[in-house]
């Protein structure tokens, strides 16, 4: 009996303690915060960082090894995933700090995860994220620090950047995210497939009519013309289909329900391509990874994607994606990158691109005396004149003094990307970065319904616009 009583008492005690523990998270954190500075007397991180910000002396002497939670999109097939790992390792080695890397491939799920993390108070210390409408919620909530606020304590923070090229927040016009590398969206081609179908690699004057004619030839040769998973990642086709019915001058203007003709026409253009059978047979049920594999394995000819896919294609040409020495150069040489076919007022050389992402320092990290220095140091390091060129490569950067690009270190696809970029006539931001959240649902997640005719393009577009203007 005594044993049962004892057991019951222990069980009841455990339950009460679990309730008490859950209710006292804040105090537990405070305890950590209080204890942290005492433990930070070993390594003066400030002195060892390559960045040149001047932190208050008291803080730099107290700074010591801390663990920063960092979340970026440098993961998976992102071309800079390896660069990011190497840079993080270098920063950790120099400062003695450590990084808990929660990076993930950039997609809608990633965006949702990040925004939810902010909403539930579990945001990272440093975040590499979009600077468009996707960031509105946590900027509105005051959960990230503006560059000006950081400069009030660290005057040299991001001083190597051209402020004019750093995007203003759509919320308050302030600058929050320190950019690293720009991006472009263009059309990758598998020239092995093109050769087999008797199609020439498209050039700077490529039109939609020529594209359709080429697709017919490719299809007749037994290949899939376009590698795209419309049920998973229709984003790139969505953007360019709308762009093809507009011009660089007005692409970033979100239409009203009365002026949405260009958007509706864009959706109908994708529907026409689907009905012509240019997309993979399983485009509505495939994932982006599957259709990308079709492209790299020589079963599909065209792939519209971003500059980050250069690294993904290179990885696909390596027998060991982690080991660059295993690169199959012959296979890589079959890939090229060119312009998305133009139409109407948009020339093929008018591309989607810009500086759409950057490093944020969260307020949680800023308010934590143990982490503030480390967070500033980390962002300063990752956006330094030495590190940014590693990431920017064939894309743009916001550096004031961008060093000359050493193309001898580039692989063949990067060199082709540089050549393609040299003839670009304009770079326009993606309107989907302004068209945030649930207003995209009807045309992004709803793309399969649009192309199959289950929902008309007009209904889907108007539903999205109505949601946008109701926000």
């Amino acid at each position: 009996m005594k044993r049962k009583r004892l057991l019951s008492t222990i069980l009841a005690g455990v339950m009460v303690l679990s309730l008490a523990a859950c209710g006292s998270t804040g105090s537990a954190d405070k305890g950590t915060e209080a204890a942290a500075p005492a433990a930070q007397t070993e390594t003066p991180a400030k002195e060892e960082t390559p960045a040149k910000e001047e932190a208050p002396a008291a803080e730099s002497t107290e700074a010591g090894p801390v663990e920063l939670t960092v979340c970026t999109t440098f993961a998976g097939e992102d071309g800079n995933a390896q660069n990011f790992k190497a840079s993080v390792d270098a920063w950790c080695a120099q400062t003695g700090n450590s990084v808990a890397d929660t990076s993930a491939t950039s997609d809608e799920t990633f965006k949702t995860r990040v925004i939810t993390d902010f909403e539930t108070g579990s945001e990272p210390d440093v975040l590499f994220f979009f600077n468009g409408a996707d960031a509105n919620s946590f900027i509105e909530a005051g959960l990230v620090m503006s560059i000006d606020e950081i400069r009030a304590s660290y005057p040299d923070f991001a001083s190597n950047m051209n402020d004019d090229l750093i995007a203003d927040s759509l919320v308050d016009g302030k600058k929050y995210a320190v950019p690293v590398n720009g991006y472009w969206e263009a059309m990758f081609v598998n020239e092995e497939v093109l050769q087999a179908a008797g199609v020439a690699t498209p050039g700077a004057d490529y039109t939609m009519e020529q594209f359709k004619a080429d697709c017919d030839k490719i299809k007749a040769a037994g290949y899939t013309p376009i590698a795209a998973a419309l049920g998973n990642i229709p984003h790139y086709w969505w953007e360019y289909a709308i762009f093809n019915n507009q011009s660089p001058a007005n692409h970033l203007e979100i239409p009203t329900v009365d002026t949405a003709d260009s958007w509706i026409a864009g959706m109908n253009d994708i529907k026409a391509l689907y009905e012509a059978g240019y997309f993979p047979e399983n485009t509505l049920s495939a994932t982006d990874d599957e259709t990308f594999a079709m492209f790299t394995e020589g079963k599909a000819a065209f792939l519209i994607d971003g500059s980050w896919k250069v690294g993904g294609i290179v990885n696909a040409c390596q027998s060991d994606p982690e080991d660059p020495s295993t690169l199959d150069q012959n296979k890589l040489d079959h890939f090229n990158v060119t312009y998305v076919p133009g139409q109407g007022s948009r020339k093929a050389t008018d591309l989607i691109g810009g500086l759409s992402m950057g490093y944020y320092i969260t307020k949680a990290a800023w308010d934590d005396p143990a982490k503030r220095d480390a967070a500033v140091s980390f962002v300063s390091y990752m956006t330094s004149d030495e590190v940014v060129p590693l990431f920017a490569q064939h894309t743009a950067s916001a550096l004031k003094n961008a060093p000359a690009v050493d193309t001898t270190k580039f692989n063949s696809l990067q060199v082709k990307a540089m050549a393609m970029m040299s003839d670009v006539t304009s770079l326009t931001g993606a309107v989907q970065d302004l068209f945030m959240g649930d207003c995209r649902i009807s045309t992004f997640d709803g793309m399969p319904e649009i192309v199959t005719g289950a929902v008309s393009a007009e209904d889907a577009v108007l539903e999205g616009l109505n949601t946008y203007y109701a926000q």
Partner: protein
Amino acid sequence: MGANIYRNKKPAIVFLVPAFLFMAVYLYYPFLQNVFNSFQEIKILGGRGSGLTDPWYGNYVKMATDPIIRTALKNTLLMIAATLVGQVGIAIVLAIMVDNIRIGKTFYRTVFFFPIVVSATALGLLFNLIFLYDKGMLNQILEKFGKTTLTDWKGEGIALLTMMIPVVWQYVGFYFVILVTGLNNIDDSLYEAAYIDGASTWQKIRYISLPLIRNVICTCCVLGVTGALKVFDLPWTMFPKGMPLKSTFLTGTYMYYQTMEAKNVDYGSAIAVFIVVLGIVLSQVVNRIFRQKEDWEA
């Protein structure tokens, strides 16, 4: 002391209060908050609502006219049927077969139970490879047998079946172990008597095994139905966002989609309330259909 401890209820109450608090904090409060949220306009998870929807029961009206929730409900009911027939049904057959062999019982128990210990997400990824359109295991096998075209196992029309196969497969072993344990509890003397009377194997199963494990089967059916209502991770891993054409949504995956992907937190809350009501109703129905009987009733 002695029997007095049974008359004094205070210690019992003291010990029950923490458990009640635990349930109140982690179950009843979130549930009531969720009901409240279903009447609010909420776009941000964890954020405060911007007021009542117009009308205040708007989300429930929307649910009544939402064709996707009907698809999700139909799929969930099909999943329940697949669970009863596939999981419990196959488990009964396997349990009886294993019960009738002399050697290898432990081996089969382990083999059939093994999928339970693997995470559903990992299984989802595994089956993604099996059902892959290009170079998937299944299509490669069919190619070996001379099929010249690829089958889109995740395509419209066949996607639901593709989703149900791994879900059913994963939990067969769970019910198998429960049923084998039930069969082991049957006294061997009954089988010996039947043998002496000249009963065939089928007659022994029909008139001894199945009647005596009826209650175990009922328990498995109740567990199967309630489990099918909660299936989430494996279908979401294989068919995110109800792909293709939102035809594979279950009530649980649709609630997650609305809350986490479409940012309709209030509508997701309303779907959650619907799932709870559905669960209660189905549990009552299942309990009535499969209610356990005392041995003398059997």
